[in-house]
């Protein structure tokens, strides 16, 4: 009997150790992704020379153009420049228009206090990455690249490439900081993906509840379609929002109380400055059609 209890106990202890190991790995993976997904990467284009990622992704819009960087979760750590400090190698995809996604391996070198993007190597356009591993101070990338007859989304040639930071070859990107003559100024750049932000607001269901509240108001303006462009909680249950009514450049600040899952309009006032022309144009485009309530 005791032996049986002992065996069960051993199994439980073994199971708990496995869980602890898996949990700690998941935690370290999450913290690594958080770190690498908030780093500053050079883009290689002089228009927007560098971008700091937010949650592994960032897009800088300027006029009708943009530069977009994405980290899709393939990376490894190791001492790649042989200085005794832990560096990182991360796969980043970059897009500057059209659908040409350029996948590259970026080296983030530890300068003693932080990781700094020093060099990149081109992997392929629309590459499919299987794994990125550290091997004796080098980076081994297992990936699919394109061969004759492949469609853009589906490369089929499996290759294993090994990259030595000290000997990266001629197609290495060494970041250049200076901007081109026509590079957008900081004022020209917009980093927020407004469409996604408004989608997130709609997903809360609050705009639909505001619509119901407005339907019970007498003033004619409340009968107009509106879009919630910003939203923030005030205190328990209450929230404030910036609302744009259709056909007007002026936005309104509105405060709501939430009582028994019902929105109660508390305050409304017109904001002094109209929204930017560029953003107003966006809200009139098809991409924003679904957000008008």
């Amino acid at each position, binding site marked *: 009997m005791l032996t049986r209890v002992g065996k069960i106990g051993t199994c439980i202890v073994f199971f708990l150790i496995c869980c602890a190991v898996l949990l700690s790995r998941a935690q370290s993976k999450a913290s690594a992704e958080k770190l690498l997904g908030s780093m500053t990467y050079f883009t290689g284009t002089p228009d927007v020379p560098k971008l700091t990622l937010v949650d592994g992704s960032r897009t800088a819009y300027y006029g009708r153009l943009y530069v977009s960087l994405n980290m899709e979760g393939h990376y490894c750590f190791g001492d790649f420049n042989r200085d005794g400090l832990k560096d990182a190698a991360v796969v980043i995809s970059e897009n500057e228009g059209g659908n*040409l996604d*350029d996948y590259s391996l970026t080296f983030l070198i530890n300068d003693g206090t932080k990781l700094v993007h020093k060099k990149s190597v081109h992997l392929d*356009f629309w590459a499919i990455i299987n794994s990125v591993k550290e091997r004796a101070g080098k980076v081994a990338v297992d990936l699919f690249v394109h061969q004759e007859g492949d*469609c853009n989304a*589906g490369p089929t040639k499996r290759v294993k490439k090994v990259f030595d930071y000290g000997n990266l070859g001629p197609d290495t990107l060494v970041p250049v900081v200076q901007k081109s003559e026509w590079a957008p100024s900081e004022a020209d750049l917009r980093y927020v993906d407004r469409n996604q932000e408004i989608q997130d607001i709609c997903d809360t269901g609050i705009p639909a509840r505001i619509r119901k509240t407005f339907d019970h108001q007498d003033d004619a303006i409340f009968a107009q379609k509106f879009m919630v462009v910003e939203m923030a909680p005030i205190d328990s249950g209450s929230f404030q929002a910036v609302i744009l009514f259709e056909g007007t450049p002026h936005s309104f600040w509105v405060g709501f109380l939430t009582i028994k899952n019902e929105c109660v309009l508390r305050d409304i006032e017109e904001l002094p400055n109209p929204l930017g022309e560029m953003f107003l144009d966006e809200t009139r485009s098809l991409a924003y059609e679904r957000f008008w309530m």
Partner: protein
Amino acid sequence: MPKKQSNVDVWLGRETPRVRKALESASRHFGSDSRLTVHTLEAVYGRESSFGTMMRKPGSSAAAGHFHLEPKTARRYGLNVSKKNDERFDINKSSSAAARYLRDLDKAFSKKTTIWGPSKTVPVNSASERKKFVVGAYNAGERHIADAQRLAQKAGRDPRLWSDVQKFLESASPKKDRAKEKAREIQQYVEKVLLYEIEFAQKSPAGKGKTAKKGEYRCTEGGRWVTIDDRPVYIC
């Protein structure tokens, strides 16, 4: 020995009535003054995702779905892009968005359009020639193609001829380290899509009943023989 099937033959084998209907319906977005047809859409569809067999992950922040659209482009045409609901994977919606994107690129290259700063398109009056610029811009973005036009013009070449402009794709690339690969990719993309389009026009039942516009699939200038999928093909 059985004859090797061409890519277009393979893709036509995957073109279900539903897909064909979606492509035909989407091609109605093309204006009568462009040379974009349902076969252009079929060619892009084949080249991008092999007729929906390779589409990548829903919600991806890179290009994905039937027409391999970027999330930003897809949203611009009213598609939802999220992990739960990615309409780039809906053939009706993605083909409509791709057709409208091609139509808008056609408009951008049919009149002088400012892209950014000195990047302006040079209008290409010949609709069949313009199609090469449109397909190139679908792949690399309108800015890259407009910049190559500007450099061609500066060098005394004709910015309205793709054969002249494609030589400047490398110098127009903002990323100097991989400009050669990018230029080669764009050139191959345009060449292949237009070849596939010709083959679709001959073999595809899509758009049946519609007759090709005069000179639609004929060279307006000297062509040449190339080997595509192990077959000799004459291209414009």
